[in-house]
Every structure is written in C-alpha cells, then in structure tokens.
C-alpha cells in the first residue's frame, strides 16, 4: 500500500504536454475499442428490426404481461427496449394507453434491462461473462415488475 503511493508520487510531475498526449491516445484507443462493438451490433440490430422476429417474440411474450399488471401489447415495448434501445421502447409505449402505475412498472423493468445486445457486448469487453450480465438484468426486471405490481 505504502509502496504504491510512493510510486504514484514519483510518477507525477504535474501537467505536461505528455499528459495531453496520453489523454488523447487513451481517448482514441477507448473510442476504437467501443466503436468496433457499436458498429457491429448496430448493423445486426438494424437488420433484425426489419424481420418479423421481434413481432413474433412479442406475441409469444404477451400472456406473460399479466404478472406485471400490464396489457399484452406492452410485450412489444419490452421486446423493442431490450433488443434495440429505450427510445424504440418509448415509441411503442406512447401508442399504448397506460395508467400511471403501469407506466412506472414498465419504466422500472426497462431501466433494469434494455439495449441488451449493445450493452452486453460493451460489458463483455471489460472481461465479465455475458451470461452473468443477462441473468442479473432479467432477474432484476422480472422481480421488480412483479413486486411493483403487488405493492403500488
């Protein structure tokens, strides 16, 4: 511990041109790392969006919506939010007429679990297992949906 703090102190010489250079370099490196993921996933999702796959998933999920106190059509908003992003989900939610309670439930569920392809790919890059990430997000969304439907 002590050793480490000595090391950081000797390393630091205040701000020099090297500070700026290092910053730009690691900024570009990080952007490149993220860009590779984002472009790949973005292309896949844009193509999936134009297939009937998402509608099909939504139809299959519709009966499940009852446990969250949501109408069956809310499934499409959940699917869009999880596969594409929150803005896509908002578009679908706007076309439903939800009560304040239902809006809050779907908002909490989506805020725990959304943009799964994009965000899991980014999280994986840090070295974490995607299965773990998905497990956490799905469980949080499902449990909080059921819970809020009971207590609100």
């Amino acid at each position, binding site marked *: 511990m002590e050793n480490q703090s000595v090391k950081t102190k000797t390393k630091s010489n205040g701000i020099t041109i090297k500070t*700026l250079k290092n910053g730009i370099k690691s900024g570009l490196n990080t*952007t490149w*790392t993220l860009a590779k993921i984002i472009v790949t996933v*973005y*292309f896949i999702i844009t193509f999936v969006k*134009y297939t009937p796959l998402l509608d099909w998933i939504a139809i299959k999920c519709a009966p499940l919506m009852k446990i969250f106190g949501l109408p069956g059509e809310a499934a499409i908003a959940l699917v869009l939010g999880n596969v594409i992003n929150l803005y896509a989900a*908002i578009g679908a939610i706007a076309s439903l007429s939800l009560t304040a309670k239902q*809006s809050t439930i779907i908002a909490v569920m989506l805020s725990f679990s959304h943009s799964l392809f994009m965000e899991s790919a980014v*999280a994986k890059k840090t070295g974490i297992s995607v299965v773990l990430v998905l497990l956490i997000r799905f469980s*949080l969304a499902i449990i909080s949906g059921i819970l809020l439907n009971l207590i609100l």
Partner: protein
Amino acid sequence: MLDFLSIFKEAFTGSMESVFTIAKIVIPLMIVMEVLKDLNVLDKLSDFLKPISKILGISKESTFPLIIGLFLGLAYGAGVIIKSVKDGDLRKRDLYLLIIFLVACHSVIEDTLIFVAIGANGWLLLGFRIIIAVVLTSLVARHIDKILIKSNNEIKKEVKE
C-alpha cells in the same frame, strides 16, 4: 423484399453517429482523467468518494468509473474500466462489483427523464433503481471473495486435468 441498401445505409449512418457521440465524450473524458491523475487529484477525489465505496464494498479506485457510468452511461463507465484494467488499477473483485452495479444502474439522468416523459414516476423509478443496485452490489461484495477463490480453484483443476 426488403430494401437491403436502405437498411445498410440506415445502419451505417446510425452507427457512425453513435461512434461520433462516443468519441466526443470519451476523448475529453480521458484527457481530464490524465490531467487529474498527474495532478494527483484522482486520488483525492477517490478519498472524497470513499463513503460510497465503503457502502458498496468496492475499492476507492473504483469510484471514478462508477460515477462516470452512473451519470454518463454504461459505455463510458466501461471505457474507463477497460483503461483501468489495462493500467492494472482494478482488481478482479472490483471489476465484477462495478459491472454488477453499473448494469443495473447507469445513465440515471437520461434514462429517468425518458420515462418521466411517458408518465412514469421519476423519483420512484430513480430511487428504486439506485437502492436495488446498492443492495445487490453490497450483498455480492460480502460473498464475492469466496466465489472468486472457488472459481479460481476450478480453473486450476481444469488446467491440471
């Protein structure tokens, strides 16, 4: 038949816009980070945020990526994490805890406002999300050392076999 070219064009412009948005935030963020590091401010900032790291059970070096992810978004938090892992500033334990917290709770301002716009209760949404993320992370923090040792042993076993 779907118009392949127009979908391709949509994907191309959309993804380029996203990359540009990321670059606009990540490059200044990394410059600020280097400046803070060279001024030794990052250490002081981490000390200042120590109460947060204590509650969550993470090291104080983890608070900076946590705050970035919490307010700016998961990708930016992950960007800082990726860099910290490369620099050797983050232990595996902190990496797991950070990601567990951040996948549950990130870009809280933007995400909350989007849902307030459609009639959700913003305070309830934000409060619920933060409390759940804090509880989950601190719970995992208490048991993670055992889990990590176990999985390390399993890896060793596999290597031996």
